[in-house]
């Protein structure tokens, strides 16, 4: 894909478009096409002053995308435009001819003129509104209603109707809808069945495209007032944009960081902060030395740490009155030096301070459950020193820490004879590393042989008690160092066929193997589970990480399936996702039963390259979502007395970094800008096009 040259694309591209776009010279040509397409296809007719102008390019780009859906007709003859009654002819016009609904050949196709300047984005936006239903009937809270118009930055107009006047209202609404086509979305709102409060006399509701704006309830007795309302609104917006130097495209001032936005929207909620102790420069040392404390270091202005503060407070609520551990917090925006002294320079950080021990940083997920687990498992020392065989048996059976085994599905007991001091130290050290993750214990009494004999293992050794399965494994530990022991225990914590969740996926991704995922709506079918476990046992799945995902527990799984499948077959679904090399996704045929044989056969075919992937995950780099203000050019412009340019073209030649990114064709396209072939100017504005080109290139390779 990557060796696709720009030129190849553009040559190929023009050849393709040659058939898509009809060039016409006379009004007669236009009428012929119009007549031929009545009842069949809508027409996208455009006038451009000359071939090769930016407007021409914009039309061609649109034709590339929509050419199979609409007949694109292009002219450079101004006379044609005059004859269809256009006034104020400037350098370009774009019309949409609604020919498809026309059944009577004598009837003319309705025409809608695009009023915005001819750019790729505007055409795209315009066509999208042409595709949208002319009039939609709704019976829900207008504040909640969203249509394609809002996404395109256009307002919505609701005509409020009652059962009694429905017919007349609908006629009015349709009429308004035609007038506002391409400028706003028009909906008919049936208020009778509506629970939301609408002012008694309001007959029109106006909803702006800007997020967070309340809907306006209006009383308008003249249809023209509705139209002018919308037009003045768009006009206002346009003049604003013009004032802002013709800024087109997305608004850089709109928050697109989900954490920042959600924290901001939640800013007025009162958190029960009183359940955590706020520490200051004066109280910090005294507090953390006086009692075992958990400290959250955060910064009031940093969204991520404020989001986590909520989980932290949730933990405090859950632990209220049950824990000896003091939950505290330091706002580093206020107590900067305290944080620096504690070596905290990033936010958020959680540290546990215990008497006589070095503070331990929490390294788990920033969420309530995981932090709770860390706190609970920290109640016991790590490892716990067991002093009797009976104690060891209770430890292994889970009796000893009954209330903790929900947080640690495995208990690890190190067995050493009293003379094995080094091995024991290594284990103890490893235990400290795993503090808060797993329950560990150590047994090194004289009678340790009772245990090692019972579990048939030579000393030094580990006993792993899996509480859920009620199984105890034994692992010899000869010459293992701290890191080895940590590794052994961490691996032991992994399950052979886990239910994958948001929390545990990272631990399984570390294995760097392709995932074999069974998507299930609810709990897993026991037969499927059995089939996979059998394959695991027979070592057929060693090169994969088999797991399953419960859509009910992890609803985001739906989002994943929507990426994998164009049309979604019923669940359960089995897929192999090759995340780490290539990104291919293979789907187990949904018409086959999930049996050992079928699965094995299919996996072999996948492995042999005989199956074709249902999709390939994009390998795109994460680029800036939007451009930044180019203050440097604004300053230059001011210095040279030229009007400043507000938005930079995203990647200037000098901005192209040396990494070999994913879209060399796009970059080279930008570099060659002046040569005048069809190109993308702003990737951020016409990403839809970039995506299209990519899949296009891929298709071509296959041919």
């Amino acid at each position, binding site marked *: 894909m990557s060796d696709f040259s720009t030129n190849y694309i553009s040559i190929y591209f023009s050849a393709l478009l040659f058939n898509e776009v009809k060039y016409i010279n006379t009004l007669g040509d236009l009428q012929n096409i119009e007549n031929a397409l009545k009842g069949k296809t809508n027409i996208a007719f455009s006038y451009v002053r000359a071939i090769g102008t930016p407007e021409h390019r914009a039309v061609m780009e649109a034709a590339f995308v929509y050419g199979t859906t609409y007949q694109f007709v292009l002219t450079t003859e101004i006379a044609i435009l005059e004859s269809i009654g256009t006034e104020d002819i400037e350098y370009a016009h774009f019309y949409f001819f609604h020919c498809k609904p026309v059944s009577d050949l004598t009837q003319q196709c309705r025409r809608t003129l695009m009023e915005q300047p001819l750019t790729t984005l505007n055409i795209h936006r315009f066509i999208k509104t042409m595709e949208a239903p002319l009039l939609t009937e709704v019976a829900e809270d207008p504040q909640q209603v969203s249509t394609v118009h809002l996404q395109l930055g256009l307002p919505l107009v609701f005509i409020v109707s009652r059962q009694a006047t429905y017919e007349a209202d609908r006629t009015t609404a349709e009429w308004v809808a035609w007038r506002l086509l391409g400028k706003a979305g028009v909906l008919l709102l049936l208020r009778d069945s509506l629970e939301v409060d609408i002012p008694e006399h309001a007959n029109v509701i106006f909803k702006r495209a800007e997020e967070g704006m309340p809907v306006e309830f209006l009383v308008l007795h003249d249809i023209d007032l509705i139209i002018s309302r919308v037009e003045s609104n768009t006009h206002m917006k346009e003049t604003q944009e013009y004032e802002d130097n013709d800024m087109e495209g997305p608004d850089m001032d709109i928050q697109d960081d989900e954490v920042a936005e959600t924290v901001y929207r939640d800013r007025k909620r009162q958190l029960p902060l009183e359940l955590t102790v706020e520490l200051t420069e004066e109280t910090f040392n005294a507090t953390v030395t006086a009692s075992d404390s958990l400290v959250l270091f955060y910064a009031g202005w940093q969204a991520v740490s404020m989001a986590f503060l909520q989980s932290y407070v949730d933990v405090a609520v859950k632990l209220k009155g049950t824990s000896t551990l003091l939950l505290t917090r330091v706002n580093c925006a206020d107590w900067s030096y305290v944080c620096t002294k504690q070596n905290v320079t990033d936010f958020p950080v959680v540290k546990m301070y215990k008497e006589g021990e070095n503070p331990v940083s929490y390294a788990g997920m920033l969420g309530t459950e995981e932090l709770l687990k860390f706190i609970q498992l920290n109640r016991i020392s790590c490892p716990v020193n067991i002093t009797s065989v009976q104690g060891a048996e209770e430890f292994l059976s889970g009796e000893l820490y009954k209330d903790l085994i929900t947080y640690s599905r495995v208990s690890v007991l190190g067995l050493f004879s009293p003379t094995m001091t080094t091995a024991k130290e290594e284990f103890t050290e490893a235990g400290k590393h795993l503090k808060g993750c797993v329950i560990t214990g150590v047994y090194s009494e004289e009678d340790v042989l009772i245990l090692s004999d019972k579990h048939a293992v030579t000393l030094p050794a580990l006993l792993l008690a899996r509480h859920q399965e009620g199984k105890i494994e034994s692992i010899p530990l000869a010459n293992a160092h701290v890191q080895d022991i940590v590794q052994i225990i961490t691996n032991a914590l992994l399950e052979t066929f886990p239910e994958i969740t948001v929390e545990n996926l990272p631990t399984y991704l570390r294995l760097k193997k392709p995932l074999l995922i069974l998507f299930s709506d609810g709990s897993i079918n026991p037969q499927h589970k059995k089939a996979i476990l059998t394959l695991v046992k027979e070592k057929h799945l060693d090169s994969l990480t088999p797991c399953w995902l419960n859509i009910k527990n992890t609803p985001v799984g739906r989002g994943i399936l929507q990426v994998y499948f164009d049309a979604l077959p019923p669940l359960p679904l089995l897929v192999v996702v090759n995340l780490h090399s290539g990104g291919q996704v293979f789907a187990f045929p949904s018409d086959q039963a999930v049996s050992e044989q079928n699965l094995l056969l299919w996996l072999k075919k996948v492995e042999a390259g005989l199956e074709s992937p249902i999709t390939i995950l994009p390998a795109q780099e994460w680029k800036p979502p939007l451009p930044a203000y180019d203050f440097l050019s604004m300053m230059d412009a001011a210095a040279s007395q030229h009007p400043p340019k507000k938005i930079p073209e995203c990647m200037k030649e000098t901005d192209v970094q040396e990494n070999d990114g994913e879209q060399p064709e796009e970059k080279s396209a930008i570099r060659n800008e002046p040569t005048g072939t069809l190109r993308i100017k702003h990737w951020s504005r016409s990403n839809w096009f970039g995506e299209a080109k990519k899949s296009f290139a891929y298709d*071509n390779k296959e041919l």
Partner: protein
Amino acid sequence: MGLSAAAPLWGPLGLLLTVALHPALSLRSARAWAPRHHRDYCVLGAGPAGLQMAYFLQRAGRDYVVFERAPGPGSFFTRFPRHRKLLSINKRYTGKANAEFNLRHDWNSLLSHDPQLLFRHYSSAYFPDAGDMVRYLRDFADKLGLPVLYNTTIAHVTLNKDRRAWNGHYFILTDQKGQAYQCSVLLVATGLSVPNQVDFPGSEYVDGYESVSVDPEDFVGQNVLILGRGNSAFETAENILGVTNFIHMLSRSRVRLSWATHYVGDLRAINNGLLDTYQLKSLDGLLESDLTDLAIVKDRQGKFHITLKFFLEENNQSADAITLPQDESDNFAMRVAYDRVIRCLGWNFNFSIFSKSLRLSSGGEFSKKYPLVRASYESKGSRGLFVLGTASHSVDYRKSAGGFIHGFRYTVRAVHRLLEQRHHDVPWPSTQHPITQLASAIIRRVNEASGLYQMFSVLADVVLLKENATAFEYLEEFPMRMLAQLESITGRQARHGLFVINMEYGKNFSGPDKDVFFYDRSVGHTEDAWQSNFLHPVIYYYRHLPTEQEVRFRPADWPLPRPTAIHHIVEDFLTDWTAPVGHILPLRRFLENCLDTDLRSFYAESCFLFALTRQKLPPFCQQGYLRTQGLMGTESLRQHGVESGLLRDYAAVGWRPGDSGQQPGSQGPGRQPLAPGPPIQHFDGNKEEL
């Protein structure tokens, strides 16, 4: 400043005597060669700058000594300012707990780890008394146990070449008793100790600021002429304004008001009572003329007349016969006779103790009163000689605060950091962060850092990017004009690009003739941030470390060479740059576009989705979620996310098998709010046509 203070009444003659004595002194010190004490670091002067340096040397455990000719520290303040009111503000309340931030409004404290050694514990006055400063400095030296040799006047400093020395030479200091000290590094913190005198005929009739009476009674019913237009001139005028007939002030250039120039050394509003009475037609007045053209003539009644030097040279006449300007132009402004003329022309650095071999020359860009130093405060003439404190102000004279305690406490620290790297292999302190913390690290500093705020456009923070921009190092308060030498000065590597974080006033905002109160002076829109006028953060991005040439030939009025990209955080009335959309969002976009990556933060669920639907993850997910440190979020946050459209409520997604693939993860790379799904179907069609 320290050296000056023991001086009794400086008369012009006294000064001349001192200067004349110097050749003799140097001869004597050359003879007194014998036992020599060695110190790695010698600090000259126990004023604020000397003590500040001593503190850092002490904390680093270095071999050093401080010389002070007075019996105690800060002796300048025992006498000056004459009217005892310090112009440096002692703001004890800011409404904030952040101690670093509060230093922004504490212009008197030195830096130390001891919160008791803050000036607010020494005075409750907003403009404190100079006596409190003396008391504060004494406590600072005593409580921290700084070794100062008091009553030790270094009379002569010379250079002794020695290949074993750190800098290829030692500095040899000789005190008044002939005792010699050998120093590897010399830190000169002697302040400006010599009153500035302009030589013109009649200058002997002039009272100096340093010795003129401060008792208003002595000026009752007098016509007073004050030479100079700085704070000492106005301070002197203020004191006698109510008892004189009138006061005229004469200086070469127009008055510079600090609130117009944003330079604390210019005339402060607290002293400008005379401007008020002048403009309100109360007989007082300001005049501009070059003093070197003037002459003062004393008549028989002992009154003083102003004339031009030019007339005196014409003919050698008796006092009464000398031509006065009013003889030719009868409305000459200064045609009245004065009872008194007072000189308030500021201070000069005392060059006299430094031997020629040190090549410590005078003459900065604007003024000859300071020794010439590099932007690293090292003398241009001899390596290893650094000028600290007020005397180091040539670097930012009339620009920033380097001549004042609240500024030079930071430049002294910068010099100390440089020395630690140069002689002890201790690299410039820095913190390491993952790239996802970049905006956060910058926001933290611009909101609290005092060094950046006081020493705007002189000291700047530097972010050094690591390979592939996955991590960065943060260095604080680096002398920005030394940027080209950053690697050798700091011992840190700058191979993968860097950001420089500076604070700046608007380019054409400050100046003696500027109206800083013009309507619409403040900028509120993020896209106009570059036009911000008040002090605001500016971030420069360089793909490569600039060269010395580039720094030297930087554009006029620019503190740094032209960067690859620049960002201004819009000025803020509260100097609180933490607004999510107004301040942080544009900064993130800037950083993202410089680094060509996506620096947004994501909840764990989004990272989970990306991890299973994309081959690459955004840095936040890579550095957080994938390392099992994802941000889980809470239900109420998720609700907000769904309402904002940034998160999808998958639980509520209609579940019809056969649903056509909607584009998920609308936050994907290159996402734009209006992005529709890629029209893949169309291309299947195209394929067939091929």
